[in-house]
């Protein structure tokens, strides 16, 4: 049953050095506040999993907390490249991270397989693609009925997944809505799951077939208004596109990056996120 606790406690209790961890969100509902808390607690040696590692993994890599990254698209969405990730892979600053690269389809299937308790995902993919030459975790199985060779990748089973969601009810059931991405799978595939939410309400008041995670699938809930910023929370606030554009400049320079992290992450607090969404709130 999910407890509602401060974010610092939720991170400290659920994320350990050396863990395999997913901070998931597909453009929408990216758990920035949780990632910043992990950075503040300096929890390192992590294997970071995410389909679309963007600003938060750029930050974690730049701060030296990542041992390895498993991903399918490492870009700043709508802006360009990830400069801290590049600096690590191209120049080894602050150290060279290992990486395991897949396609989106493979990662989506691998999360699905993780949620489904399977050891691997089977799908039709990677035909003619170069990744299967460089990634030994891309293998194949043969359909026992048609003889077709299908791609197989290992299921994703994080030690812990972090997601941000719109709201929880007082029993700890969590609602994710809008672009739901891979969040349900990230939670169900993980041994532990931590959810930051915009608010806690008496009643989720949603559709019977909406994406709801029952309280017994979640380890901890933390209320962090604005906790997805500069990503967005559908129905609460819009995406802060300017921040994504700015990140491209901040991350371009190692010193500027470190200074920004000091001011905006290391010396900041989860409560600061509520200020960052001022002016971005959507009419409700």
């Amino acid at each position: 049953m999910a407890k509602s606790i401060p974010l610092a406690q939720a991170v400290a209790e659920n994320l350990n050095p050396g863990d395999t961890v997913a901070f998931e969100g597909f453009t929408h509902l990216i758990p920035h506040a949780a990632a910043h808390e992990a950075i503040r607690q300096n929890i390192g040696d992590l294997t970071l999993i995410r389909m679309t590692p963007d600003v938060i993994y750029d930050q974690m890599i730049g701060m030296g907390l990542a041992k390895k990254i498993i991903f399918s698209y490492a870009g700043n969405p709508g802006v360009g490249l990830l400069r801290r990730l590049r600096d690590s892979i191209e120049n080894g600053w602050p150290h060279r991270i290992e990486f395991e690269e897949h396609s989106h389809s493979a990662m989506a299937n691998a999360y699905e397989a993780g949620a489904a308790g399977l050891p691997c995902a089977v799908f039709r993919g990677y035909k003619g693609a170069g990744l299967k030459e460089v990634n030994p975790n891309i293998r194949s199985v043969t359909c026992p009925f048609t003889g077709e060779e299908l791609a197989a990748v290992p299921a994703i089973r994080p030690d812990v997944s972090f997601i941000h969601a719109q709201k929880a009810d007082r029993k700890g059931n969590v609602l994710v809505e809008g672009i739901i991405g891979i969040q349900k799978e990230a939670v169900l595939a993980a041994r532990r799951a931590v959810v930051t939410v915009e608010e806690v309400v008496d009643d989720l008041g949603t559709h019977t077939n909406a994406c709801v995670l029952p309280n017994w699938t979640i380890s901890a809930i933390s209320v962090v208004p604005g906790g997805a910023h500069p990503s967005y929370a559908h129905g609460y606030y819009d995406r802060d596109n300017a921040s994504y554009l700015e990140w491209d400049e901040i991350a371009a320079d190692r010193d500027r990056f470190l200074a920004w992290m000091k001011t905006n992450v290391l010396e900041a607090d989860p409560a600061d996120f509520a200020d960052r969404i001022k002016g971005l709130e959507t009419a409700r």
Partner: protein
Amino acid sequence: MTSADFTSDEMMTIAASRALSNSDVCFVGIGAPSAACNVARLSHAPDITLIYESGTIGTAPQVLPLSIGDGELCDTAVTTVSVPEMFRYWLQGGRVTVGFLGAAQLDRFGNINTTVIGDYDHPKTRLPGGGGAPEIASSCGEIFITLKQSKRSMVSKIDFFTSFGHGEGGDHRQRIGMTTRGPTLLVTDLAIWKPDPETKEFVVTSLHPGVTRETVQETCGWSVRFATDLEETPAPTAAELAVLRDLKARTEKAHGGSKKNGAES
């Protein structure tokens, strides 16, 4: 009713949009593909189905999204599904007629690299990677590619096979078990290219107004073939330009409006 006053970017977007029809189901990438798909929807193909890999099906944004997961894509969609469902039921399920891809590097057979420049393990430039591209390239009915011509992007040999086009040409797709058509159209800022029916090498079939064969060759890293019946791309009509420019203006205003002043978080 054409307008003489248009940019090569506008010509590229509008030429690409013309290739789309009402019955198409498009898997849309960000940037030029997104603009082309939405121009088609706002002009000659109002019933076209646009799908973004974030899970939004049948979306109809008033402004162009900055990312593939902007909120408006969801607000205007017929339905929004999870990412595993998107890749399993909709893409792999064979329900997408046209996949739109861009490229950092492209070869004459429509093979694409968006992964690395240089060696994979020790790259000169680490690019974002393929995202959905490897399976978009194999699962969609056909693939349209848009890109701005340059010798850096149109190369004789790509550094990495992010997604497979026609491989070494000919029946290479069939030989590796693909049943879809692969790249059937390349729209650049200078020309329209289509694969030779036999060799599958991209051939220029139409030059945009005012573009010469020389310009096309100078901005392409391989020896360009031109169709014997080479045509001139019809210039954008005033109506097409109006749709595109209105869309861009709305987009500029909307994304500008959501910026905060001076914030650095």
